[in-house]
């Protein structure tokens, strides 16, 4: 006898119409969910302001690229591919799930616009999506439960392992998929002649169920439906409680993410520099001092561990793991602002509470974490804000107090005399007399040398090489000389904002007094500071770009490499590469030297470049670490088959040269600066 499929909406059990139950479940589920969302939004309203509502087209583009197209996921290929499948399946199945909710109390329901052709296509898509999704879920569960990749591990001190939660959620997703397909299959099996799409889960169930009595199918279908309904709303209400909140918040997190790297947020977005003195407190000391976007970051973390996997501080076993900055932050946030019950009151300082001082000082601000995060979580601003809070309380490591004091008094971290800042120009040679502002010279270009390159005996060679290159390239430039003070790049990133501002203001005055039309820097930290931290209104360029231009125009003519047997590799400095996107100009400069053999450090170059250990104040900080970052980097260079590391940053060069000694590779590995290399290979 023909059997009409028993729609869940029309079923009656024990005298109770099922539709009532299936109406109640969504209503209750939605109510709980809304309550939870309100609770979750509250702390964002209590947090510091953050203006992220402008530049909408750029933001939409990021959403399309990072969120929809999952652009960063494939950087970890297997997990990434699986996640992409899961994500798209979610998007597709979301529609079906919505429809299903209504089918609980309406005999028939199609989403608006999904009748007809579109609906038919969608039906195909969704069944395949569900099947693929289940496959992904199984593989993901296997990864979490069996393979257990290193980056998911939770150190004992930081709480229990997260695998359980991951498997629970995968299990819930699997249940949703299976129950939906089963429900679909029951309906199809009850209507003879209706087939399911070959190879899908529904199809598999359909075959299993072929020949089952209609009554049975009907009840099975209602049961499957019920399981789906309950699981769906349970899952929905589970989302705001853990790492799967990202399912909801990731879209927003990406929309509101940082548009440009290299910047540091102001102390407070709603306070101008001139009014900073009036602030009661600086920096982030408690949770509510974070901006709402930073709290949203805490919500959005998917616990994928990619940030920590790429973090150089984490790799050398400093106490810092970016992932746990977020996870601990989230835990603290959930505790202070629970879903039920009153908000916590009472003081809860972050550093000394969930974070340790060493943890916060360990960061070199290299940006690898932010580059990697598929959801756009930011770290550098948080670390800088936490440091601002520490500086205000005087809790600065002794090893940093001296260089900070020296910068304040002498304008450089070694406390050397101001009048010796331009002494390096004596060694330039090449018939070139470097113009200085002290001497009252003028020129359209200003070479901002910064402290390391000016004072360090070894790095002065970079300044000299740069000067010679600029001369050859026909660039008419001057340097500030005595009037130049440390750019303050690390001073700012180490939280001493007011000292940075005083340096910035003095340097800005000195620079504008020279009225240059362009500023050149060889030090990427100075470059970044002038470009992003200062507001000069004058274009800032890195010397590698000038070299590139000089090579292209023919002004700089390279001669064959001195030793063709050597193998060169280029190390991308953090503040040239990741923070400023300058990857190609230095490579072009190196490759322009005829006969020079260059290799890349595969998987660890460009935006995956491993930080050398850090510049500026990082040179002075003494962390607890298993080894120096530079040593890891030099090992990577050796592994790539190189015996010369070319860098374009004086700090990278120092760290590389030190690392070569420590690693015992003297004689087998050499480090050289880009300007030195180019300068040494220019035709007369």
């Amino acid at each position, binding site marked *: 006898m023909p059997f009409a499929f028993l729609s869940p909406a029309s079923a009656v059990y024990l005298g109770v119409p099922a539709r009532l139950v299936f109406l109640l479940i969504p209503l209750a589920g939605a109510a709980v969910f809304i309550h939870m969302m309100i609770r979750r939004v509250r702390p964002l309203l209590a947090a510091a302001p953050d203006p992220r509502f402008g530049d909408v087209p750029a933001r939409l583009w990021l959403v399309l690229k990072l969120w929809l197209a999952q652009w960063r996921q494939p950087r970890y290929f297997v997990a990434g591919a699986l996640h992409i499948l899961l994500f798209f399946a979610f998007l597709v199945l979301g529609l079906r799930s919505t429809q299903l909710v209504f089918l609980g109390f309406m005999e028939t329901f199609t989403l608006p616009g999904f009748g007809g052709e579109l609906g038919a296509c969608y039906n195909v898509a969704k069944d395949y999506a569900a099947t693929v999704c289940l496959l992904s879920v199984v593989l993901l569960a296997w990864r979490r439960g069996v393979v257990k990749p290193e980056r998911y591990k939770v150190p004992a001190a930081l709480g229990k392992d997260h695998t359980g939660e991951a498997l629970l959620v995968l299990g819930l997703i699997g249940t949703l998929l299976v129950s939906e397909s089963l429900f679909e299959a029951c309906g199809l099996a009850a209507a003879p002649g209706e087939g399911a799409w070959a190879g899908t889960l529904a199809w598999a169930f359909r075959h299993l169920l072929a020949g089952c009595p209609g009554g049975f199918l009907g009840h099975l279908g209602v049961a499957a439906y019920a399981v789906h309904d309950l699981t769906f709303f349970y899952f929905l209400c589970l989302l705001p409680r853990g790492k799967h909140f990202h399912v909801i918040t990731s879209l927003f997190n990406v929309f509101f993410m940082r548009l440009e790297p290299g910047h540091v947020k102001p102390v407070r977005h709603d306070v101008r520099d001139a009014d900073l003195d009036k602030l009661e407190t600086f920096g982030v000391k408690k949770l509510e001092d974070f901006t709402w976007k930073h709290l949203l970051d805490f919500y959005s973390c998917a616990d994928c561990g990619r940030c920590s996997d790429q973090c150089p501080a984490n790799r050398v076993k400093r106490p810092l793991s970016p992932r746990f900055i977020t996870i601990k932050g989230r835990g603290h946030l959930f505790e202070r602002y629970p879903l039920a019950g009153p908000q916590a009151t009472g003081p809860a300082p972050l550093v000394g509470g969930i974070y340790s001082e060493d943890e916060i000082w360990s960061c070199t601000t290299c940006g690898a974490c932010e580059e990697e995060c598929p959801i756009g979580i930011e770290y550098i601003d948080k670390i800088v804000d936490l440091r601002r809070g520490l500086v205000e309380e005087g809790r600065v490591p002794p*090893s940093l107090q001296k260089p900070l004091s020296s910068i304040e008094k002498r304008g450089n971290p*070694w406390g050397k005399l101001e009048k010796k800042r331009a002494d390096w120009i004596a060694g330039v040679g090449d018939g070139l007399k470097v113009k200085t502002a002290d001497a009252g010279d003028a020129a359209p270009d200003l070479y901002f040398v910064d402290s390391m390159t000016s004072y360090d*005996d070894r790095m002065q060679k970079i300044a000299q090489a740069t000067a010679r290159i600029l001369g050859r390239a026909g660039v008419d430039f001057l340097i500030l000389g005595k009037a130049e003070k440390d750019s303050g790049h690390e001073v700012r990133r180490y939280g001493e904002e007011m000292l940075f501002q005083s340096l910035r203001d003095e340097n800005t005055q000195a620079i504008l007094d020279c009225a240059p039309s362009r500023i050149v820097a060889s030090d990427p930290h100075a470059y970044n500071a002038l470009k992003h931290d200062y507001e000069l209104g004058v274009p800032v360029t890195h010397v590698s770009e000038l070299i590139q231009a000089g090579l292209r125009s023919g002004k700089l003519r390279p001669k064959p490499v001195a030793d063709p047997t050597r193998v060169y590799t280029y190390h991308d400095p953090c503040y040239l590469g990741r923070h400023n996107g300058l990857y190609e100009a230095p490579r072009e400069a190196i490759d322009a030297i005829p006969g020079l053999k260059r290799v890349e450090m595969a998987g660890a170059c460009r935006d995956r470049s491993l930080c050398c250990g850090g510049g500026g104040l990082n*040179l002075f900080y003494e962390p607890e670490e298993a080894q*120096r970052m530079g040593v890891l980097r030099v090992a990577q260079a050796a592994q790539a088959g190189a015996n010369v590391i070319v860098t374009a940053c004086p700090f990278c060069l120092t760290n590389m040269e030190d690392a070569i*000694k*420590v690693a015992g590779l003297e004689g087998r590995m050499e480090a050289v600066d880009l300007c030195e290399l180019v300068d040494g290979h220019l035709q007369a």
Partner: protein
Amino acid sequence: MATKVFALIAHNAGQPDDSALELLAGARTLFPGCAPVALVAGSGPDVAAAAGAAAAAFGEAWSFDQAQLAYPNAELLRPLLVKALPPGAVVLLPHSTLGMDLGPGLSVKLGVPYLPDVVGCQASEGDTLTVVRQEYTGQVSTHVQAQAGQGAVLTVRSGAFAPAGAGSAPGRVLDKSAEAEGLQARRRFLGVVAAQAGDVDITREDVLVSVGRGIGEQENVALVEELAEAMGAAVACSRPIVDAKWLDKSRQVGTSGLTVKPKVYLALGISGAFQHVGGIKGSPFLVAVNKNPKAPIFQVASVGIVADLMELLPELTTQIQKAK
């Protein structure tokens, strides 16, 4: 000048320590032909022994044997000296932690000028004393003058004067223990805590043997340690050695390490980069040994040797051990 010159003698286990003969030499330089008196305070038979030895060198010693004085407490010694010394006395103290504790207050209680941390002097002219001091961690020297008509208190830096030759005659010991009765101290000694073994504070060391990358392998650091031990010096190092974890961070000299102000500094296999040299203050006698004749260290060293450390160190250690 009828000034009586006195020197406070530190002693251990019945023997005056090295500073005694240095103070004697200092006294004689300041007041040629004077007969300085050694002051020996303490408790028990060691005091007599030390006083005897001091008297043999100085000619005369005053001993103060009192239970309270068992441990040298400046807060007790000060009122004791004020009581026991004749008016117009010139007192020499070593510029030690005891001298620094005792001297300034003593000069006030005696109402006389105070000349601390003297590194050299001329013979006095009448009542006028002229001494050499250093300021700014030894970067500059000064001549300082005082009128010692009513007396004076001086503290003398260790090594400022070569120890005087000891006399041969037994010398006279006056027992002034009675003066030490009834002393009240508002600071009472409780005990000492020895510095932890291996816990060397190189910033307080006078002689440092410092090793850099030129030493080559980690096992060669032992050669440096042997040399340091033979010299009675402490081992220090430059940053790469600490990075390589061959020595503890507490041994690192440099701008990102510790600042040291020794009298003698051996820089072995150290290139002389500013990051290291910047941690050495006070213009010590700096001996640099390096394979590279162009190493910048030779510009700041007092004495330089271009040699292979592997050959020089063992030879040097052997010769020093023989010299002791």
